[in-house]
């Protein structure tokens, strides 16, 4: 499983509840992993039904944890984001096959 974090995304002017920074997740074929954010004021947005072209979100549009399942025969990419009320670095807990792995991901430029 690999992560790539990006810059905070520009948002419309005015009061915006949260910002986002994109985080691509690639998971190997046949793998299954649960990703949980441990950082207060952040959530994980990977459910496409909640994507908004306006780029305006609230923290509750994301989830505290997301389970990713790779395809049986090939890797899969998940194009989502971290929603954040301020933190630009998130502590993630990855659980794979009963093992827990801590990962820290930062927004580019942060």
């Amino acid at each position: 499983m690999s992560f790539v974090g990006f810059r905070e995304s520009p948002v419309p002017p005015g009061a915006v509840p949260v910002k986002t920074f994109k985080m691509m997740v690639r998971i190997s074929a046949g793998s299954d992993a649960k990703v949980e954010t441990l950082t207060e004021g952040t959530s994980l947005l990977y459910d496409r039904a909640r994507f908004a072209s306006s780029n305006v979100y609230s923290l509750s549009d994301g989830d505290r944890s997301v389970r990713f399942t790779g395809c049986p025969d090939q890797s899969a990419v998940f194009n989502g984001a971290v929603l954040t009320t301020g933190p630009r670095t998130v502590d993630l807990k990855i659980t794979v096959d009963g093992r827990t792995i801590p990962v820290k991901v930062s927004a580019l430029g942060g």
Partner: protein
Amino acid sequence: MPCDHYRRQSYGGPTPSWATHNWYVTEDEIVRSFSDLPGVVTLIASKENGAPEVAWGDSFFFYDPDNAIPENRRLPFATIVISDYPGFDTASNLDRPGVFRLNLAVGRDRFNELFGFSSAEFAKRSNVFDFTALDRIIPHPVYAKQGWISVLVPGAGTEDQVRQLIVQSYERARGRYRPQRPGDPDEGHNQAANND
């Protein structure tokens, strides 16, 4: 999140708030479309292959049937870009969650057919395009002059046309390819610049 969550699907529930349609094509699906074409080499930029950080995660598609062209000499005929390039290519706001942009070198003639003006006129006509709009064929915000077109998150509105344009860009790259021969005076220059 199952592996097919981002694949084309009709939603039984609410339509995604960003889409006027209820399905879309995914990066993975497009990458596989290219990979299925004979002679196509795919490169996904990453730290491991020495790509600059700004390009990590972007995909580049080359026609190189012998896989022999030096990497620094290859010219892609298509790319998938998933984030902005600050100071260079930010018009599409690709840093939005879920957003990516497919870019295709279709050539100046096809560009003219698609938009009704020549790519050379792009600079003075660019203000009529919304480069952040999803599922629309638009000129490439930076490389339009070279005959490149783009679409952000292809979906029901563009899928058929995008599939045709993918094949056209591939055929164009294939037609421009010349096999590498040791000792050629222009060895390594066997793909003409994508600016016919």
